């Protein structure tokens, strides 16, 4: 987010981040980490509740954990109407900032500096680029492998479903262990009815961006150990068939390879996170953590003992299970 602030500004999108942290914590975070967007302090989780986002799997028994929202992002237009939203299935996964900008602008804009590979044959140029961040992979951050087709006038390719005998566009990403890929995101197809054959087709023409979201997990990059390999290779296998309204080229598969850098993770400067060889915060977060817990348990300090007790019980249970 921090690194992408200029891009938000250039695109005319204001950026707000809301959490249950107190103002002092946010001030320190903003100053020490150079945050330029607006940090909002919802200490009693009032707005989190107003939005219906309070994580109700947690309770007051969870002491300082209680009060956090289900994590996600809303993108709104000039009128304040939601045009897109991203909610996550884990606290440790989120979109690249570029995906939010793309959602606000309604199209994918790939950085000129993004790692990319290209193939031009039969007059069809295909580019594969790693979109998001600085074109590197970071633990827990979703990037997109974007395959762009530049189709000459008159040619189209197919989306699913296709009639028998034709080949729909398919993209497979092959990478190291620990690289997770999600289902492909595609623009809407245009219906094409071929009178002579009486068939209905779903086609893309012109310039088409097909995006496969991906992110690395612990086997590849972990906040708990130094990065052992600085770069990994990702291969993209692109299968498609290009046709005019009259004739078709043979189906083909092109493979493009990219060298992708692995990036360290910013970790909060708390004893449990530090010393693992990752990028630590520019300041000690311990006082903020202490303040947070005190704020959450001071009305009922027993909560803290209860939290410790519950934790011990869960640890014993997981040891037995393991």
């Amino acid at each position, binding site marked *: 987010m921090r690194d992408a602030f200029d891009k938000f500004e250039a695109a005319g*999108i*204001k*950026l*707000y981040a*809301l959490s249950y*942290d107190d*103002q002092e*914590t946010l*001030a320190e*975070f*903003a100053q020490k980490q150079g945050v330029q967007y*607006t940090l*909002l302090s*919802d200490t009693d989780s*009032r707005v989190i509740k*107003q*939005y219906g*986002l309070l*994580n109700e*799997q*947690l309770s007051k028994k*969870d002491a*300082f*954990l209680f009060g956090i*929202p*289900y*994590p*996600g*992002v*809303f*993108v*709104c*237009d000039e*009128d*304040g*109407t939601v*045009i897109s939203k991203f909610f996550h*299935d884990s*606290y*440790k996964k989120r979109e690249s900032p570029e995906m939010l900008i793309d959602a606000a602008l309604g199209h994918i804009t790939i950085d000129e500096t993004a790692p990319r590979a290209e193939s031009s044959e039969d007059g069809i140029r295909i580019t594969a680029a790693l979109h998001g961040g600085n074109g590197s992979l970071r633990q*827990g951050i979703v990037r997109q492998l974007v395959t762009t087709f530049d189709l000459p006038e008159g040619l189209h390719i197919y989306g699913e479903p296709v009639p028998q005998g034709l080949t729909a566009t398919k993209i497979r990403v092959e990478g190291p262990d620990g690289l997770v890929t999600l289902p492909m995101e595609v623009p809407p197809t245009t219906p094409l009815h071929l009178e002579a054959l009486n068939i209905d087709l779903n086609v893309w023409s012109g310039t088409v961006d097909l995006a496969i979201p991906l992110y690395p*997990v612990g086997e590849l990059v972990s906040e*708990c*150990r130094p990065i052992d390999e600085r770069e990994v290779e990702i291969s993209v296998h692109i299968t498609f068939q290009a046709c005019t309204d009259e004739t078709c080229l043979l189906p083909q598969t092109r493979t493009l390879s990219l060298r992708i850098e692995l990036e360290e993770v910013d970790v909060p400067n*708390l004893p*449990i*996170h530090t010393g*693992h060889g990752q990028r630590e915060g520019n300041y000690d977060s311990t006082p903020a*953590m*202490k303040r*947070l*817990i*005190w704020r959450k348990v001071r009305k009922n*300090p027993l909560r*803290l*003992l209860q*939290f*410790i007790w519950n*934790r011990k019980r869960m640890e014993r249970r*997981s040891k037995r299970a393991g």
Partner: protein
Amino acid sequence: MLPVSIQDFDELWHIAVMKAERDELGFDAPAPVGHPVRASLPSDAPTGPAIGNRLPDFSLPDAFGRVINFHEDRGQSKAALVFYRSAVW
């Protein structure tokens, strides 16, 4: 002994958070693996206002203590509003 003052609390609080268990994705957190805050979130978890609806208005203090009214501050700009866990842990 119960933590009845912030000084007593000083002695105790770190026991609660200064121990981490590592999960299979390679993350540490101040809660045990298997705790709801560590596990995958339920697929039917609420996701707030729907696409096409106006974001509910609200006012909150920013990092400098200024009270920010969301829609007023946004003016005529598009915006991204991020709900996240915490800047601390």
